[in-house]
Each structure stands twice: as C-alpha cells, then as structure tokens.
C-alpha cells in the first residue's frame, strides 16, 4: 500500500491537507514511491519534459513550412507577425504557442504528448505564456506540471485521455483542464482554486467530438489547441477570483466518462462523422488518397 496514493481529485486534495503539502508535492512523492526513484531523478525527468515544451514552441514558431498533407503549418508565425487586436498579451501568447506546438507536431518535430500528441500544444503553451507574463521561475513550472500530470492521471484512471474512447473532450478537454490547473497554481492559487480551475475548464469541453479530416492530427486539431489554450486561461482566471464549479471536479470527470461512453463511434477518431464528413473534409480525404496511390 502506498502512502501518497490518490484515485480521485478529492483524495489528492485530502492527502495534501493531511500532510500539509502542496498538490504537486503529493504527486512527486507518489511517483517516487511507485517508480522507486529518487526525488532528484523524478524532478529531473519532469524538467526535461519542460525543456522539450520550449523546444517545440521554438520549432513551431520558426518553421513556416507545411505538413506532409499541406493542410497545416505557418499559422503560428502568421499570428505572431500580426498585431494584437482583441486578446490580452498572456492569452494571445497562449494561442500562438499552442498553434506553434501543434504545428510542430503535425510537421514531425519533437513534442511531448500531453496527454496525447493531438492535444500536445495546450499545456506547454499556457504554462510558457504564464511563466513569461508573470515572471515565475522554472521550479514553479516543474511543480505546476507535476500537479497537472497528477490530475491528468486521475482523469485517465476514471475516464479516458484517448480520443478513440472519449472523443476530443478526453484529449483537448483534458489538456485544457490540466493547463487551467497548472496556470492557477503558477499564479499562486490555493489547492481548492487549482482543482476548481480544472473543473471549470473540463466542464466546458464536455461533448467535444474527435472528427479529424482524413484521419490526420491536423484539422481541426491544430487550431483547436489554440482556442482551448485560451479557454484554460479563462477558467484559471475565474477560479482565482474565487468562482467555484457547482459540479465537483470528480463528478465532472465522471460526466466526461459517461459522455464518452454514449458518444457515437463516428465521433471518436474514426473520421466517419462531423468535420471529417463535410463536403470539404471528404474532398481533402479523397485528394490525399489519390496522392498516396500515385
């Protein structure tokens, strides 16, 4: 039996309260006890993941080329060059960085699946934007990433983080909710505010379909990462103002699992419905099939 084991967010918060520790410290200690590794080693692995976050943002901002299919690429750069019109500085950065990482993924650069490759832009984008804008150091980011990962592990355990099982709510939804929790922690939120940031964000991604055009991690995935990065910032801002989710975080996870179960298979990564089956979606799929045969 483990000392720091948690199966729900309620248990995670209760453990932190009992031991007078932060959420991230509980997550670190649980990882240490299950992997039988030292704290230095465990923290080192997470710091290296954070490093890849930054590399993937750079790669996406610098490379203006297109993906193999030609469907995505160059939009992060385009938005970076365009003057700000509506978004505040932090949210705008989050959107640009999320585009950058997701484009980097589509163009076969190195990324961290977080929790999946299709949703890999959101957590790095939000965390990097927050760190740059409010000026936190790397230690704060590593801790926040542990918190986000621990929360993601609970989602994975009690629902799913796979589009084929739960639709995009399981992928981009989980990623955005993890990012909201990380942002709330980095901005100095309490444990309660952190998990409320998670819940507020997760609730507003429920029902999201996974309907990628031609089965590729490109349309709508890349731009969806950017829009959900901004939603994560909104959810964190609300939680930090003391706004609470009426439905408790663990019940939101249960709702996500249930919606995933009753969601039609056509909307769970099979490309048999939604955007994939629009006239344009079908035409793109037909063109790519033609290209492959040639």
């Amino acid at each position, binding site marked *: 039996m483990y000392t720091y084991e948690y199966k729900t967010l309620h248990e995670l918060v209760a453990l932190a309260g009992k031991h007078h520790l932060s959420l991230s410290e509980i997550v670190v200690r649980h990882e240490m006890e299950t992997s039988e590794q030292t704290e230095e080693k465990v923290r080192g692995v997470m710091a*290296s993941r954070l490093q890849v976050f930054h590399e993937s943002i750079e790669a996406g901002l610098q490379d203006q080329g297109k993906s193999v299919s030609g469907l995505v690429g160059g939009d992060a750069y385009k938005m970076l060059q365009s003057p700000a019109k509506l978004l505040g500085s932090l949210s705008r950065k989050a959107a640009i960085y999320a585009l950058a990482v997701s484009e980097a993924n589509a163009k*076969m650069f*190195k990324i961290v699946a977080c929790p999946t*490759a299709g949703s890999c832009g959101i957590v790095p984008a939000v965390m990097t934007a927050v760190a740059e804008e409010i000026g936190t150091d790397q230690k704060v980011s590593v801790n926040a990433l542990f918190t986000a*990962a621990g929360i993601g592990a609970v989602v994975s355990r009690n629902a799913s983080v796979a589009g084929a099982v739960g639709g995009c709510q399981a992928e981009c939804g989980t990623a955005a909710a993890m990012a909201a929790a990380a942002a709330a922690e980095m901005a100095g939120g309490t444990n309660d505010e952190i998990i409320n940031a998670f819940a507020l964000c997760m609730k507003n991604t429920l029902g999201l379909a996974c309907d990628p055009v031609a089965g590729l991690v490109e349309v709508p995935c890349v731009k969806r990462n950017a829009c959900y990065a901004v939603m994560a910032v909104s959810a964190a801002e609300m939680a930090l103002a003391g706004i609470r989710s009426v439905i408790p975080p663990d019940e939101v996870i249960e709702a996500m699992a249930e919606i995933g179960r009753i969601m039609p298979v056509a909307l769970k990564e099979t490309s048999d419905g939604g955007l994939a089956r629009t006239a344009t979606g079908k035409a793109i799929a037909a063109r*790519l099939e033609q290209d492959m045969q040639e």
Partner: protein
Amino acid sequence: MGVFDVVGPVMIGPSSSHTAGAARIGLMAREILDDEPVEAQLTVYGSFAKTYKGHGTDKALVAGLLGFSADDVRLRTSFDIAAQQGLKIVLSRSDDEVDHPNTVRIAMTGKTGRKMEILGVSLGGGKIEIREINKAVVALSGEEHTLITIHRDQPGIIAQATTIMAIGHINVSNMRVFRSAKNATAVMIVCTDSPVPVDMVNMIKNISAIESVITLLPL
C-alpha cells in the same frame, strides 16, 4: 497511468499510435531480427494503410528498423538514411481484414542472411504488441526485459531454459509459450525482472532444438 505517461512520451509527431508506436514496432522488429537489416518488406493494414503517409508511419517504421527511438529527430529523414546505409525498403498497402486497425507486417533480411517476419500492432499512446514471429502467434509488449527463444517444439526445452535462469537467480515475471503445431516451430517469451546475462543466453542457445535466442531491453 504514471505521471510520465500523462506528460509524455517525448516523441516525434504527429501521432502516438501512428508515429511513435510505429517507430517502436520497427525497433522491436530490428531487435527480433538480431542482425543489421538490409531489406525490409513492410505491409500496412487498416488505418495504417489509410493514413500512413500523413502520419509518417512509413518513416517511423523505417526509423525503428534503423535502430532509432520514437523521439529521435532522424525519424524525419529515415528513408534517406536507409538508402545511405543500404537498407532496401519495399512498402505495400493491404486491404485484407485484420484484427486491429493499426497493423503492420515486416519481413526482414539481415546482413548475415538471417530472415525474420513479425506482425505488430500499435495499441495507442505509443504502446505496441508484437503478435506474430515467423507466423507463430505470440504476444510481446516489449515493456520488460524479455528473452525469446525460437525452437522446435519438444518436451523439456522450457525446463532446461528456465533451470539455467533459476540457477542464475533471474526472476521470471511473466512467461508464455506459443507453437504453430505439435513438433513444429515454437516461440517461448520470458519476461524477467532483470536482464539475462550474455553467458546465460549462450548456455540457453546451446540447448539442442533451440534455433535462436533473442534478448530485448524494455522499449
């Protein structure tokens, strides 16, 4: 799921199943061949056949065959590297029915003339399973230290091999034996808590009826 499965794996995009998983199948195939591959025939099925190009599944499979891991940037240019290193690749798409949508068959020839054929599936999140070795049905995840024997099915082979491991204090976590038919080719897959040392592997190789022994490190 551990925290580094949630924030991870580190991989070359765009898809954990179609790119990272494919690279790991290729790498596992190379280890099973236990030789430098000079030719590989890749047959992709199901979703792999439908979307391999956009996901770089082909590049990932070749990268694995070259010995590159799923987070190695050389994956992007694996076909060029294969050409430079004299690895001939033939890729074909099949619309045959398969049990899993992300399936590939790899028939390889090594530098020493050694031939090996595997069937691999990518289960999602970068997890994979090898389901056939030389037509014998197996189940191999590559997540533990693994020793594989390919041998002729006859009494006593398993006992002899595991006795050698027992004397060497190698703890077996999981073990399965598969055969295509009685007295025909059999495959034994033994997962262990620690790697089986080379001298022990050589002793196992010397057991009559054992054709080859392959050891795999966790992927």
